[in-house]
């Protein structure tokens, strides 16, 4: 465990696909401005989507929500959204972008974000898989588990589409499965 007064986790990574905007809204609404751990969000989105997503989420959260730029420093009180048509990779303390080919037909890909985050933060990382209709994120969540991080999956019964959380549950036995509304309180509890 880290010394007294140091938050136990350095980052929460969240992956979402179909129905994700609504789920992210619920999740972020449950986090107050003193939430100590920065968040990185990989949400599947079309290549030409505008900044509507940031604006919608910002209107429901006191945290500073921005679309990630290359080499952004990762800071507490911030939520970084993967920009459309780029992969988002986590490095120790900062973010990097890539236009490599699609992974699981997606750019951004949740696996790319999660796997790089697991490499950067190992057991000081929390991974959360939300609603979606594909299997992106399962391999990344497994990597987080293998590196000693905490893994959380939205209860498929509470998801707009159950495929992605179901696949993540199958890939990561022992992941914490929670209904959507319980995820934010759980993060608050473990990240303090």
């Amino acid at each position: 465990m880290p010394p007294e007064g140091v938050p136990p986790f350095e980052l929460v990574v969240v992956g979402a696909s179909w129905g994700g905007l609504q789920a992210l809204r619920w999740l972020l609404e449950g986090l107050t401005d003193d939430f100590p751990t920065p968040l990185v969000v990989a949400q599947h989105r079309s290549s030409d989507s505008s900044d509507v997503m940031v604006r919608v989420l910002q209107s429901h959260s006191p945290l500073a929500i921005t679309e990630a730029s290359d080499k952004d420093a990762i800071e507490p009180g911030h939520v970084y959204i993967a920009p459309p048509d780029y992969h988002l990779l986590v490095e120790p303390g900062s973010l990097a972008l890539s236009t490599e080919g699609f992974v699981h037909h997606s750019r951004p890909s949740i696996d790319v974000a999660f796997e790089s985050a697991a490499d950067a933060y190992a057991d000081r990382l929390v991974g959360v898989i939300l609603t979606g209709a594909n299997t992106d994120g399962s391999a990344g969540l497994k990597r987080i588990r293998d590196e000693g991080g905490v893994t959380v999956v939205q209860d498929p019964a509470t998801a707009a589409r159950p495929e992605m959380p179901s696949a993540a549950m199958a890939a990561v036995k022992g992941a914490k499965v929670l209904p959507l509304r319980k995820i934010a309180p759980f993060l608050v509890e473990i990240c303090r």
Partner: protein
Amino acid sequence: MALRIERSALLGPSGFEPVKRNDLENLEIDLVLEGIYQQYGFDFRDYARGSIKRRLWRRAYAEGLESISGLQERVLHDQDTMNRLLEDLSINVTSMFRDPEFYLAIRQKVVPLLRTYPFIRIWNAGCSTGEETLSLAILLREEGLIDRTKIYATDINENVLDLAKQGVFPLDKMRDYTENYIAAGGKTAFSEYYTANGQGARFNESLTENIIFAQHNLASDRSFNEFQMIVCRNVMIYFDRSLQERVHGLFYSSLGMSGVLALGRKESIKFTRHASAYEEIDVNEKLYKRVR
């Protein structure tokens, strides 16, 4: 960072701690990149780690290997493997008129500036297979500037330059490119610029007359001219901060006063030593003008 401090604090009385897998893996990556540099001269040592690691593993798996060290042995002894790895390490995903708003901004905000020069030199750094270069050439032709422009299109990878010189692109891309072209403020029918044949869409040779394709390595080569505009989009995202700093220095010293620097939409000059030398021309499209 806190993680590293903690780890070193864990060192026992003997000062010895078994290497954690990730540290070992990072060591292997350092070694293979150093080996490639020493053996072949390609310098990937200061590339962003997360992305380079993905690509090294992709090549290792494709070669049937189970470690980065295994890949190192293969790459150092076999030029063909090195060539395949080079393809993986140089990202060549590009399209014509990618981000149409970028080209629209060039038409509206940069072209008036370029018009003031009797002769225009543009450096398209990291041109890959040439889609971006050709898009710029089309735009400049429509603005009546191509005849007094030279575009220097450079890339680290000679294979992609060979493709770029051919100016032939897959036919099935033309629908997307046409949409992009229109959104980018295109002034005619996009199909006028190419002829479709069995191989694909061959772009008119008159478009490439003023383009010089040449190999150039941003990580190690020097400036080679003074330019009125440098376009380098989604290239430096693969570099770490120190290499980005080097390349920004290179661009700064290669741009004339009032020269324009064009970066990718999610790139920024704000971290660099040269940030104060530029004014924003378009904040969303990351167009900057050198002012000092």
